[in-house]
């Protein structure tokens, strides 16, 4: 079953076609990787899905809902979460607060109830915390729970971002270069987690990744892009042996 469909998706910045008529679909429960040289338009595709950019052509359908012109803040409520290439955490808040924000799309309390902190608010806060603590457990973040995120090491911060995305109860999660800046050991952990996310939490995953061993390790299907166009789409081996992909990476 198709979870996300992109049809002829395009966007121009001035005269540059950053994404140029890309069509692909994501099956429910798969791990889908996007590869391509720097500046190929990979992150732009993510930004289009999370509606940070307005597409200039084509459309996006998520679980039967056309999200091409959806308000950006409603994307999370549909069940799409993401991480960012250059870690975008809430730096001056604690880890716990960071993860709690991720539940925002699901909050049901009203402002006047919160001002008075009615029992209903307390109950909903407890519920939110139960969800968050589960994710903290899965990603082994207990010991940083009350630390200010700003002071934590990079690898941990990357994990926190992953945790935060998971805390919004996503159906689809977009990971933008999750392994960049991680050491070998952390990258290995990551590949386990990515599979756990899919297998245990039932979340569909799209990854942008440069580390080809990680790509081969986890992905069901791979899409290669360059200059905003689709080069190849298929199993990891198919894509890596595709002549256009080899040309894009090696030049010539």
């Amino acid at each position, binding site marked *: 079953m198709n979870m996300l469909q992109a049809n002829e998706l395009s966007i121009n910045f001035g005269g540059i076609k950053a994404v140029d008529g890309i069509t692909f679909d994501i099956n429910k429960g798969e791990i889908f990787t996007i590869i391509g040289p720097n500046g190929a338009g990979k*992150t732009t595709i993510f*930004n289009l899905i999370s509606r*940070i950019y307005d597409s200039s052509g084509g459309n996006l359908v998520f679980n039967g809902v056309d999200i091409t012109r959806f308000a950006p803040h409603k994307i999370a409520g549909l069940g799409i979460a993401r991480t*960012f*290439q*250059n870690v*975008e955490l809430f730096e001056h808040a604690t880890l716990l607060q960071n993860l709690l924000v991720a539940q925002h799309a699901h909050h049901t309390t009203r402002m006047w109830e919160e001002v008075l902190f009615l029992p209903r608010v307390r109950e909903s806060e407890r519920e939110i915390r139960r969800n968050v603590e589960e994710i903290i457990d899965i990603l082994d973040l207990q010991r940083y729970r009350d630390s200010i995120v700003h002071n934590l090491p990079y690898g941990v911060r990357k994990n926190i971002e992953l945790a935060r995305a998971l805390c919004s109860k996503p159906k689809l999660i977009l990971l*933008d270069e999750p392994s960049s800046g991680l050491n070998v050991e952390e990258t290995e952990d990551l590949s386990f987690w990515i599979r756990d996310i899919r297998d245990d939490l039932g979340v569909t995953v799209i990854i942008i990744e440069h580390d080809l061993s990680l790509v081969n390790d986890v992905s069901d299907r791979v899409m290669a892009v360059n200059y905003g166009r689709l080069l190849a789409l298929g199993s990891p081996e198919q894509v890596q042996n595709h002549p256009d992909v080899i040309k894009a990476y090696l030049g010539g």
Partner: protein
Amino acid sequence: MDMFFQLVINGLAVGCIYGLVALGFVLIYKAGEVVNFAQGELMMLGAFVAFTLIVDFNLNYWLGLALAVLAMAAFGWLLDSVVVRRIIGQPQFSTVMLTIGLGVMMRSGVSIVWGPETRSLSTPFDQMVFQVSGVMISPIYLSILITTVVLCAILALFFRFTRIGLAMQAASQNQLAAYCLGIRVKRVLSSVWALSAGVATIAGVLLAPISLIDVNMGAIGLKAFAAAVIGGFGSITGALLGGVLIGLIELFSAVYLPEGFKNVAAYVVLLAVLVVRPQGLFGTVGRKKV
């Protein structure tokens, strides 16, 4: 019709002053992303220094002006290298607070040194009056227009052809890259402050015959700020045009609109511009990359 032309000339002249102060904002902002809320106070301080040199020390007008500009440029350099440089990289709020604090200090310093009374500065062309096809043009206003045009031409040439001008442009585009290319970024930033303080001094001296020199002169800084925003904050031409626009609107609203509108005209225009084009008239949409 006479009145109309008179208003246009006066509006242009007042607008040029706003524009010059706004230009100072923009220069500093472009170079180091510091928003200098003390720009109006720099102008005031410059006017006081010029007054002291010209009236108290009895120097020739032009010599006094030149010395005042140099003194203020040195002051601007010091301000950057001693104080402002320390907060580069801190959140924008810090720079806002720092420059507001500096402005308040300058104002109270001037008040302590020079006293609270207002002064007037006579210029060499006070007594002349031009008449162009029936319209009386006061040379004070004309001198402002001419000086502004000349100054802008000099600045344009400076940025295009001198090494330091090019270095300033480079540093404003990418500090790290400029640094790697051997540009002494710190020194460049300080010289931008010096330049900006010098321009502010000229603006202050130009303004002196119109509005007298006093401690609250710096309030013009706020209107100049509005001008810079209307012009898009990143653009030097934009700042000048924004200043002229505000000057014209202000003078016309003083005549054609009920009392009180003159004082808020600049701000109403500012809000209107921001509603219609939040990035200013000449600005481009900047967007954080993720």
